[in-house]
């Protein structure tokens, strides 16, 4: 077993880090305060090809391998989780179209998504539907070669500026996916402000009021919108968030080490205090474990191994808990300074908490992981029974 990055992956990571350190990090606190991501930054992300990172080359994307893409998420997440969410939702829609779109949808949308000419957002969550995502209430009805959508979506990252939305709605009582363009009649979006974290993620509420879209905008088939179309998107989302958590946790650790090396209390630097060391040790160990889980999920993703679904869920679960704890420790180490706007630490804490909620909350991941463990246990018992019967 070898766990190390290739020279190409190392070079890509350096490039991503340089981009994030120059273009994102110096402005992240300001964007957080403004609750805004300037279009110029989105343009720079597009220019670098990052908005088409997972789009196949035949459609003009970079078609990154899973580990390289993970490294991109890590470096962007280290600088700003709001910008990470742009990468996440763009990729979620790209993946859904690449996997389940019709040939026409792939030909039409993927090149535009790859270059960033089209910005995409994912519309699953609703005002009354969160974790129970299969029960969306937005309704779609077929009429005269069109679908007519009625309903509301909420907490939609980059919903303020996206041109294209992947919307999950009930059609004939079955969850179904549709592509809805911003200029569709009956579609509108309203900015959400005052959030705890992800404040620059341009969150929006979407309204579809007799929103009319061409029948050709159905993605996949009726009834496969949640299980398959959203399934691909959410798996991608969990993967991005897991790696992004790793980046943010590293930012927390770096800030903590720096502060512990310069701040003196009781006549000695914080780094010499054992209770500070305890927090540093927890961060360091959990970050290392998170990295291994992310690598493993990426390895399985590149192989197309079905185990990737559960391993990605596990990585996201552990990574988001890790970053939440790391940000809490970082704030504790910084004390009142960490609570002030002079340090990014308060942003880290606010953003870290969001990571435990998006793309399946910690509690939803726990349910999934426990059920999977129980199944594995049953399988193992059955295998041993068979083996014993064979030996008898």
């Amino acid at each position: 077993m070898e766990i190390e990055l290739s020279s190409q992956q190392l070079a890509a990571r350096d490039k991503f880090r340089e981009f994030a350190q120059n273009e994102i990090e110096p402005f992240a606190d300001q964007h957080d305060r403004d609750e805004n991501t300037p279009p110029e930054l989105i343009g720079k992300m597009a220019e670098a090809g990052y908005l088409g990172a997972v789009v196949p080359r035949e459609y003009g994307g970079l078609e990154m391998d899973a580990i390289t893409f993970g490294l991109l998420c890590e470096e962007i997440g280290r600088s700003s989780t709001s910008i990470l969410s742009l990468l996440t939702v763009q990729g979620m829609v790209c993946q859904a179209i690449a996997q389940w779109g019709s040939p026409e949808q792939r030909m039409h949308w993927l090149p535009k998504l790859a270059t960033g000419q089209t910005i995409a957002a994912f519309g699953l969550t609703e005002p009354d539907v969160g974790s129970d995502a299969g029960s969306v209430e937005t309704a779609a009805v077929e009429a005269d070669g069109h679908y007519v959508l009625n309903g509301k979506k909420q907490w939609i990252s980059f919903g303020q500026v996206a041109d294209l939305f992947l919307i999950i709605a009930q059609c004939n009582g079955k969850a179904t996916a549709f592509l809805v363009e911003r200029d569709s009649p009956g579609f509108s979006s309203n900015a959400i402000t005052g959030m705890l974290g992800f404040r620059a993620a341009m969150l929006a509420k979407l309204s579809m009021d007799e929103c009319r879209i061409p029948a050709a905008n159905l993605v996949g088939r009726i009834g496969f919108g949640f299980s398959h179309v959203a399934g691909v998107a959410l798996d991608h989302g969990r993967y991005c968030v897991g790696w992004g958590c790793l980046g943010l946790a590293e930012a927390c650790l770096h800030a903590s080490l720096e502060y512990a090396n310069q701040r003196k209390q009781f006549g000695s630097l914080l780094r010499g205090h054992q209770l500070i060391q305890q927090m540093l040790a927890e961060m360091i160990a959990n970050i290392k474990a998170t990295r291994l889980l992310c690598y493993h999920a990426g390895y399985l993703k590149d192989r197309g191994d079905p185990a990737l679904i559960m391993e990605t869920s596990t990585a996201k679960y552990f990574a988001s808990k890790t970053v939440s704890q790391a940000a809490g420790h970082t704030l504790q180490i910084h004390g009142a300074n960490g609570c002030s706007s002079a340090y990014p630490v308060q942003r880290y804490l606010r953003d870290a908490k969001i990571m435990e909620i998006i793309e399946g909350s910690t509690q939803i991941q726990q349910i999934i992981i426990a059920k999977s463990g129980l199944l594995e246990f049953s399988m193992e018992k059955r295998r041993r029974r068979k083996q014993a019967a064979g030996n008898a």
Partner: protein
Amino acid sequence: MTVETVREKIKEVLGQFAADDVADGQEIFTSGLVNSLFAMQLVLFLEQEFQFKVEDDDLDINNFDTLNALVDFVEKKTS
């Protein structure tokens, strides 16, 4: 690959990711036996194990809902 080998392989993956001892004609999706994650695990398994691409045109519950249907689907895609 024989039909029986295909059946055994699918049965194993059902046991691994969905539920123990699924009967040949038992409904997997429409009965609510499996969760939504299994849908993607199944697609990945079919593509990896039997080396074909599950296309948007293949999204028909009649292709996936029972062990028998899955065996027929694999036969159709690989023949």
